[in-house]
């Protein structure tokens, strides 16, 4: 658990927003900004944030599916940031992704066996004749009935389709899987099934996860550590459990308080975060969160905050993290009153 599997240093992923006639970008959509992050072997790291904060782009950046603007990415010690095209292929089987929309991520014209075979080809150990057996094994692994292997995706429900996606991701025998909102499109009861499955697989296969979601409430169930993202930047990394009991960053706190809890006796109520999400094409100066922050001071709009370590593998990016930490009890009472 101490070895870093994936190391990101100062990663930026920007897309051209407007271009001159010659194709030179004039302005950028800065989807991922200055992200430095370690993902340790065997852990499940959650990545949480509102829609449009760049969390999916970060997931794709890590898997090198979108072009990188600058920064370094190391995977098991190998620099993969500078690799393109065919040179990335050896790494492809080691890192996989499960997407949000299970229906759109399975080709409707291919049956499950073909879908799995496509991934099994990358698994160099196996011969073609082993595919069927391996496919059945994979289906067993994700709790699907093996006799369904020749069926087509539309014959399955959303939850089952997501299991097939997971099976496909597992087919290459990866070390690292990115779950991009993998349970968001599912109903609660199905979501629970899938999360349990994901959990179980990690235990069995000793996998490392990056678990991207907008839903804070599932984080504790699915992750060990959680990174909170705002406007393309990670503002806080915390242990999953303490994130909810002791959020450090004002944004994390606001996010947490906005979630309606399925418990009518909870006194918390819904807190309200003012303003609109920062636009990635037009980021504010200083701390990106300052226009919405109720604790902002002059410095917040001028200087970007540094990273403050708050634990072994947790940190926060806020000028006043200590002051706020001390006042936390006070604020909770203020809120409920």
């Amino acid at each position, binding site marked *: 658990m101490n070895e870093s599997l994936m190391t990101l240093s100062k990663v930026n992923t920007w897309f051209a927003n407007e271009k001159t006639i010659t194709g030179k970008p004039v302005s950028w959509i800065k989807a991922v900004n200055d992200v430095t992050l370690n993902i340790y072997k065997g852990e499940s790291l959650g990545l949480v944030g509102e829609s449009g904060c760049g969390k999916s782009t970060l997931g794709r950046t890590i898997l090198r599916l979108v072009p990188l603007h600058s920064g370094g990415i190391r995977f098991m010690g190998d620099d993969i940031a500078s690799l393109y095209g065919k040179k990335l292929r050896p790494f492809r089987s080691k890192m996989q992704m499960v997407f949000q929309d299970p229906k759109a991520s399975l080709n409707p014209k291919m049956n499950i066996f073909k879908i799995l075979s496509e991934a099994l080809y990358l698994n160099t150990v196996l011969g073609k004749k082993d595919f069927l057996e391996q496919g059945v094994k994979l289906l067993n692994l994700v709790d699907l009935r093996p006799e369904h292997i020749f069926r087509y995706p539309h014959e399955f429900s959303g939850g089952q389709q997501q299991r097939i996606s997971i099976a496909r991701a597992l087919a290459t025998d990866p070390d690292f899987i990115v779950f991009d909102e993998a349970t968001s499109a599912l109903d609660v009861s199905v979501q629970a099934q899938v999360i349990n499955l994901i*959990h179980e697989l990690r235990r069995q296969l000793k996998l490392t996860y990056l678990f991207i979601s*907008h839903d804070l*409430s599932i984080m504790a*169930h699915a992750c060990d550590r959680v990174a909170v993202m705002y406007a393309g930047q990670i503002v806080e990394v915390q242990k999953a*459990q303490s994130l909810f009991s002791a959020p450090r960053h004002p944004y994390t706190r606001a996010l947490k308080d906005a979630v309606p*809890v*399925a*418990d009518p006796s*909870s006194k918390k109520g819904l807190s309200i*975060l003012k303003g609109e999400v920062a636009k990635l094409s037009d980021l504010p100066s200083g701390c990106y969160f300052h226009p919405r922050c109720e604790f902002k001071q002059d410095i917040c709009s001028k200087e970007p905050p540094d990273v403050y370590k708050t634990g072994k593998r947790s940190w926060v990016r806020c000028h006043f993290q200590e002051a706020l930490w001390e006042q936390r009890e006070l604020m909770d009472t203020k809120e409920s009153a």
Partner: protein
Amino acid sequence: MEKTIPQKARQKTKAILEVRDLNVAFKTARGKAKILEGVNFELFPKEILALVGETGSGKSVTAKSILNLFGNYPGQIQGQVWFDTQDLLTLKDAQLESIRGNRISMVFQNPQSSINPLFTLGEQISRLIRLYLVPEIKMARQENNLTEKQAVIHIARQKLNEVGLTDIDRLLKSYAGEISGGMAQRYRIALALLSSPEILIADEATSALDVTVQAHILKLMKALCQKKQTAILFITHDLGIAAQICDRVAVMYAGRIVEVAKTKSLFENPLHPYTRGLLKAVPKFGKKEDLSFVPGMIPDLVHPPKGCRFHTRCSQAMTICRREKPRRVAAESRHDVSCFLYELEK
């Protein structure tokens, strides 16, 4: 849409809206899908009732049936929807139109796509103001000495201000594609509450929004409805919302309401096996434990299971569950459930 309504005298109740034996079936490529089967519930003045259920449980169809919004869609709708001494399902289109948007309003899931993209926000709100707020326009004209057009804009500004929108002048000239989801939903709410309706039906009104925005909208809706004394039928799949803002909760499963109770009573003491399973599946803050879940999936509504529709997934299913449909029984005070476990107890 065909309507076959057995006329029945209605007992006097306090409920503002009363849905009785609502059955809806749609023609699909594979056959008739019985989307709703005997849905019964009532909405009381000023209360917030949550209609909770998973995808395909029929909660949106219930909402649309109340105002008969299906247009030309091929299907059948049976039952009664009593609203203020009228059965809405027997009304002609013209009569319904005077209720829709005026006395019963609706807010939908995707705020941006439920605003016509070709008209400015100003044009759309003006049309409704002219339709519903004729006296207000008159008043505004007299008070402020305005032309009719100015008066309408004046009212529009007021109403948009009420829902917490700013920079209204620019907004009135914008199109749906140019505003954010949160703004769009505020705008839709402003439209829906324009005429101070008696009932607001919110169909997954916040599902497409981010949590922070959702919190805003929920607070806003609750506050405004309290002010205008509007009852809300809140349709959602999110048990958290039901728990936080609703007075009562009705749980739907496969086209039927399985349990109705006061919020507290339901969350603290769920009776129906499905409700129990569902509550256990909800992820909880900061608790790192495996979630439990209801095994299996929602049945095919073209060929629904006989008897109780939940019996295929129910761990406590009995023989009677496979044969007969459970009736709604009051297990506790104001806590009704449709399950043989409780029917037999009685």
